[in-house]
C-alpha cells in the first residue's frame, strides 16, 4: 500500500483548491501513476470552505467514494483552522502542508508539518496571493510522491491555455515552494 | 398523395375528422395551403392533431410531426436547428391551439422566440380546450360558458378575462406578430405571406370558431369570426419588434350583441338575471379595445368592408402574389 496515497486539500472558494487537486492528480499521472481528483461535492460558492481530494496509486483506482483517511492535508488558509476539523482522519505520521509563516503552536500531535508563506510567494511570482501551486511544490518536496519535473509539466499542460507568462510564473512559484521545503528542516513533533 | 385540386396543394386534405363546420380545420387549411407543402409542420396536441392524423390515416400532405401537448415550439426549435446545421432553409411551422399557446405551451413558445429561431408559430385560437370537451382556457373570453366555467347561482360563466397573448408575444420584441381570422382571407393571406417573408420567430394568432364549443350553427363559423372583428372584441393587429404597425380599421362598429347572440356559450347572458351587467361588460371590453388600437380612426386603406370584398374570379387564391392585398400599415 505504500504506493497508494490520499491527499486532502482545504481552501476557500476562489483559491483554486479544486484546481490544485486536479493539478496534483495530473502530476502523478505525468509521473506514471494512476490518479484521481475530485472536489467535495456540492454547489460552489465563493469564499465558502472548500475541500478537494486526490488519490495516487500504482494500480487502477476503481473506487469513487470520498476519502476519509488522508496521508496528507494541504491547508491553503489558516483561517479555516478556526472553524473546520481540518485534520480529521489524517493518518498518524501524516503530513500537513500549511500556508503560514509558522506552525500553529497548539495543534498537531503526531503529524509532520510544513509551513511556508505560500501566499506571499505566490504574490511575488504570479502577482496575486495564490498559494495553491506553491503548496503543491512544498507537498512534492515534503513527500516525494511526485516529482518537481512532473509538477512543472502538469502546470505547463494544465495552464497552457492561460499563456506562457502564467505558466512560467506558476512554475517559478512551484519551484520556490519546492526549494523552500527542501531547505527547511521538517518539523516533527 | 391527393392532387384533386389544381389550384392549391391541399396540404391539409380531405378525410380528416374535424367536426362539421370546424373553424380550426378551415384556418389550418388556409394557412398551410398558403405556405405550401415545402415546409415542415410541427403540431401540438389538440383537435387539429387528433382529427388530422387519425389511426394510420393522415390528412397531411407535407412533413408533419406531433410530439406532445406543451412542446411544439421546442420540437420546432430542434427541427430548425437541425435544418440550420444541415444548411437547409426549409420553412418550419408550428401549429397549436390556444391551450398549446396561451397555457401549457407558453414556456416553450417564449423560449423559441427568445432564442430567435426562424419559425412561424400559428395559434388557432378557439378560446377553450375543445379537444377534451370544451373546458375553459386562459384564452376563453369573459362570461363564456364552458364545462369548467359553467354559469350557476354564483357564477356567470368565466369570471376572468381572455389572456392578451399578442401583447405577451410583442413584449418579446419579435420580428412579427399578428392576429387574423378566417373571415378575412385576403388579410390572412397577406399576413401569412408577410410572416413567411421575414426571418426569425413569427407569431400568428388566428381566431377559429368552434361550432361545438361556441354552440353556434355549423354554417356560421365564418360569420361569427367576422362579427368578432366587427364588434371590436377581436382586433386584427400587426406588431413588429414590439410596435403596433398595422390594424384592420372597422368600417363600422357593430354592437357586441350581434356577435354574442348566435353563440350558445353566451346564451345565459340573455336569459339569466345578471346577464345584462356582463353584456355591458363585454361591450365595454370591445369599446376599450377599439380605443386602445384606434380601430375606428386608424388611417388605413384597408378596412373590414374592403377586406371582405368578393371579387369576380377569386380573391387571390393560394398562389403567392406580391401585389395582393393585406393589412395596410396604419399611421
Amino acid at each position, binding site marked *: 500500500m505504500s504506493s497508494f496515497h490520499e491527499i486532502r486539500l482545504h481552501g476557500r472558494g476562489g483559491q483554486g483548491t479544486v484546481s490544485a487537486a*486536479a493539478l496534483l*492528480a*495530473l502530476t502523478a*499521472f505525468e509521473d506514471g501513476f*494512476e*490518479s484521481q*481528483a*475530485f*472536489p467535495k*461535492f*456540492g*454547489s460552489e460558492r465563493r469564499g465558502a470552505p472548500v475541500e478537494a481530494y486526490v488519490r495516487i496509486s500504482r494500480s487502477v483506482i*476503481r*473506487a*469513487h*467514494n*470520498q476519502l*476519509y483517511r488522508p496521508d496528507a492535508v494541504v491547508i491553503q488558509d489558516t483561517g479555516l483552522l478556526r472553524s473546520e*476539523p*481540518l485534520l*480529521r*482522519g*489524517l493518518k498518524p505520521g501524516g503530513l500537513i502542508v500549511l500556508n503560514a509563516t509558522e506552525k500553529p503552536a497548539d*495543534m*498537531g500531535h503526531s503529524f509532520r508539518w510544513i509551513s511556508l508563506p505560500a501566499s506571499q510567494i505566490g504574490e511575488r511570482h504570479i502577482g496575486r496571493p495564490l498559494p495553491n501551486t506553491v503548496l503543491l511544490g512544498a507537498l512534492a518536496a515534503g513527500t516525494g510522491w511526485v516529482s518537481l519535473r512532473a509538477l512543472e509539466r502538469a502546470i505547463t499542460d494544465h495552464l497552457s491555455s492561460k499563456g506562457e507568462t502564467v505558466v512560467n510564473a506558476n512554475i517559478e512559484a512551484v519551484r520556490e515552494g519546492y526549494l523552500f521545503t527542501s531547505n527547511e528542516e521538517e518539523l516533527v513533533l | 398523395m391527393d392532387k384533386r385540386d389544381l389550384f392549391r396543394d391541399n396540404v391539409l386534405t380531405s378525410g380528416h375528422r374535424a367536426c362539421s363546420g370546424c373553424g380550426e380545420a378551415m384556418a389550418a387549411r388556409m394557412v398551410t395551403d398558403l405556405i405550401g*407543402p415545402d415546409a415542415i409542420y*410541427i*403540431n401540438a396536441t389538440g383537435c387539429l*392533431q*387528433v382529427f388530422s*392524423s*387519425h*389511426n*394510420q*390515416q393522415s390528412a*397531411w*400532405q407535407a*412533413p*408533419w*410531426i*406531433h*410530439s*406532445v401537448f*406543451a*412542446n411544439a415550439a*421546442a*420540437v420546432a*426549435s*430542434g*427541427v*430548425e*436547428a*437541425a*435544418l*440550420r*446545421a444541415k444548411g437547409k432553409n426549409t420553412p418550419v411551422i408550428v401549429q397549436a391551439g390556444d391551450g398549446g399557446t396561451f397555457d401549457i405551451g407558453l*414556456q*416553450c413558445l*417564449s423560449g423559441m422566440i427568445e*432564442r430567435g429561431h426562424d419559425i412561424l408559430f400559428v395559434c388557432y385560437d378557439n378560446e377553450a380546450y375543445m379537444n377534451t370537451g370544451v373546458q375553459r382556457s386562459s384564452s376563453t373570453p369573459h362570461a363564456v360558458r364552458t364545462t369548467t366555467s359553467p354559469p350557476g347561482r354564483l357564477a356567470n360563466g368565466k369570471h376572468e378575462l381572455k389572456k392578451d397573448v399578442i401583447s405577451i408575444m410583442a413584449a418579446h420584441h419579435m420580428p412579427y406578430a399578428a392576429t387574423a381570422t378566417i373571415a378575412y382571407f385576403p388579410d390572412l393571406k397577406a399576413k401569412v405571406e408577410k410572416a413567411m417573408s421575414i426571418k426569425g420567430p413569427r407569431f400568428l394568432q388566428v381566431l377559429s370558431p368552434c361550432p361545438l364549443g361556441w354552440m353556434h350553427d355549423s354554417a356560421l363559423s365564418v360569420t361569427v369570426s367576422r362579427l368578432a372583428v366587427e364588434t371590436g372584441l377581436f382586433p386584427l393587429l400587426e406588431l413588429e419588434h414590439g410596435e403596433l404597425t398595422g390594424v384592420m380599421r372597422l368600417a363600422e362598429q357593430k354592437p357586441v350583441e350581434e356577435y354574442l347572440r348566435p353563440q350558445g356559450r353566451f346564451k345565459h347572458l340573455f336569459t339569466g338575471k345578471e346577464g345584462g351587467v356582463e353584456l355591458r361588460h363585454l361591450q365595454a371590453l370591445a369599446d376599450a379595445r377599439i380605443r386602445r388600437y384606434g380601430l375606428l380612426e386608424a388611417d388605413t386603406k384597408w378596412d373590414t368592408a374592403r377586406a371582405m370584398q368578393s371579387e369576380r374570379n377569386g380573391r387571390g387564391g393560394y398562389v403567392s402574389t406580391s401585389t395582393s392585398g393585406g393589412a395596410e400599415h396604419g399611421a
Partner: protein
Amino acid sequence: MKQLLEGSQAVAEAVRLCRPQVVAAYPITPQTHIIERLAQHVANGELAAEFINAESEFGAASIVLGAVASGARSFTATASQGLLLMTEVLYNIAGLRLPVVMICANRAVGAPINIFSDHQDSMSVRDAGWIQLYVDSNQMAVDMLIQAYRIAEVCELPVMVCMDGFLLTHTFEPVVLPSQAEVDGYLPAFQFARTLDPTQPMTIGGASEADNYQEYRIAQHHAMENSLAVIEALDAEFEQQFGRTSGGLLQGYCLDGAQIVLLGMGSLMGAVCDAVDNLRTQGEAVGALSLRCFRPFPAQALIQYLSGAQRIIVLEKAISIGGGGIVAAELRAALYQAGITTPLESVIGGLGGRDLTPEVIETIFKKRVEAETEMTNHFAPNHIITDEIDSGGKAHG
C-alpha cells in the same frame, strides 16, 4: 491518448467526437460541466453543432426530438428533476422510435431537494422506452457514449447513458480518448430514414386507437428485447477496434468460485470490487457483478452469470417507494421465471450522495451473510441502509 480529465470533460469530448449536429440542454447540477464544455466547443468552432439553450429540460428533450426527427444526430444531458421534467417527452421520443442519445448525470430526486448522486432519477423513467446503460467509470462513460450512438441508430431506440453525478462527472481520472478517425471508423455518419423532409413527406406522431396502439407498444418492446444482442455485439466490435470493453450488458468480477455475488450498477462498483478484494483476502467466496444495461433488462445474461451463486446481494441506489429495490425485484422475477431459487437480498443505499465505501460494502456483506444462518425464507425482505458506518473521521482538535 490517455489523459487525466474531469468526467464531464471526458464525456463532452466523447460527444464532440460523435459529431452531433444539435446539442440542446438546460443546466442542472451535476450535469452542467458537460454542457458548458460543449458550449465552449461550439463557441471555439471545435464542434460544428447548433447549441440550443433550452428554456427547460422539457424543452431540451423536445428540441433533440425535433432535431433527430429532422435527420440530425443530437445530444442532450440532464439529471434528477430535469429528467423527470423531461419524462413526457422521453416516452414520446421512444414511442416515435427516435435514436436520441442523452447523458443522465444521476442525482437524487426531491423532496427534500438534494443534488447528490443516486439512481432515483433514471430508475424512475425506466419504463419510458429508453435503453439505459449505467457506467462504472469515466472511461466507460466515454466508451459507452460512443457505443450509445451506434446502438441507438441501429435499433432506432433512444439511449440514456447514466453516469453518477459528482462521483463521475466531477472526478478527474485518467481516460483514454479515442481519436476522431477512430470514432469515425466505429460510428458512421448519421442515417435515419424516418425524417421530416418535404421531398418525401410523412406524418409522424399521429393518433392511434385501441385497434393498433398495443401493436405499437409490442413492437417497441420487441425492439428493446432484440437490442440486447446488438448492445453485446457492438461492444465486441468496440473492443476489437479500441482494445477496451465496456462489458456489454454486464461485467463480472471475481466470479470464479464465487458463492456470494454482490450485484450493483454504476460507480459504486469500484468500491464493490475493492470490497470483494478485501473479502477474498479474508477467505470469503465472493464476487461482483456490474449490471451495465438495466433497460432492456438482460434476464438471460444475468441468469447465466448467477446460476452458480448461492446467494445474491443486490445493492442499489434507488428505491421504489412502497415496493423496495427495483433491480432486486426484476432480478428476482427473472430468476423465478428460470426456476432459480437462490436467496436474493435487496439492499438499498447510497441515496442522495450517501457514500458507499468498500468498508460499508463489507459490512453489508457480513451482516447479510450472518443473517443467512438464521433465515429460512429465501426471499429476504428489503433493507434500507440508513447509517451503516460512521460517515468519516471526526475532527482532531
